[in-house]
């Protein structure tokens, strides 16, 4: 996490329905079904 306020886009986690969520702004806690776990490193 480089910035922590949504400007670097470095903390992206893949969403199960496409696109990415920002962990710093939209997380850090997510509904488990919202995240594409297989797409995480």
């Amino acid at each position: 996490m480089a910035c922590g306020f949504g400007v670097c886009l470095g903390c992206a986690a893949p969403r199960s329905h496409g696109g990415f969520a920002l962990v710093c702004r939209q997380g850090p806690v997510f509904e488990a079904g919202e995240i594409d776990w297989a797409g995480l490193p």
Partner: protein
Amino acid sequence: MGGAAVRGGASGAGGAAAGGVDERVVLAGIPLRNAVLTASGTFGYGTELAPFLDLRELGGFVAKSLTLEPRHGNPPPRIAEAPAGMLNAISIENVGVKAFLEEKLPALPEGVVVLASAFGTEPGLYAELAARVSSHPRVAGIEINASCPHVKAGGIEFGQDPRLLAELVATVRRATARPLLVKLSPNVTRIADMARVCEAEGADGVTLINAVQAMEVDVERRRPVLSNILGGLSGPAIRPIALRMVWQVAQAVSIPICGVGGIGSAEDAVKFLLCGATAVQVGTQNYLDPTAAVGIARASRTTPAGTAFSASPI
């Protein structure tokens, strides 16, 4: 070498009297309150930080690079730590030009100077984007991102091939009458040649440098850290490279230069001005300290280091 004013640059000379510095800076035809901007991709759309900072204290800010359609970036990991800097391979994730014009720009306070950054995979797409953002009164100028080091198509290809760069700049130039800066890639053998091409094709200024192409390796997993394998190195690690390139470009062209790369303090910013830049952009340092750019902008007016903001280049 001529003074900054000869380069259409900082109008510092006349205002340095009585301990003050002339705050008026004109970059490529864009009047700025001071010489300190924030770099594309490091300050979002301004809206993220607007609640906490008075963005009007900045000379201006360059918004995240835009594409015509919204775009998702690379899968994670997108960033990695590096000695005195970081690597990124975000790949121009952005909301697209429509949302930028209709949602992001109107949400910014009046008086904030906004430059739009254009990205595309072919000149026509850059030109269409430039034309779209030019129609908005809040866009003070356009920066062409001809230098993203980690997108598979577009960006760096244009910044590395002088013929492609010439075609890109000429095409965008025809599409907009707004002040036009071209952001150059450091991943070339002769940066001055690239700047000359921009000048010849009608650019009003050049911004340099974008991130330096790089990679990092995870030894335990025996693979590259970034999903994209290649990324761009930014931060203090690249500052001496950026200074060298700004100096070389200043020797080669008479259009103004906006210097970027590893700036973390007013003193760093002054180094770029001394190498021939008219203005500077703060990038990676915004992540460490979101108030950094505003602090440097203030210093450009009020501290002893600020008096050097009106110095003639070396």
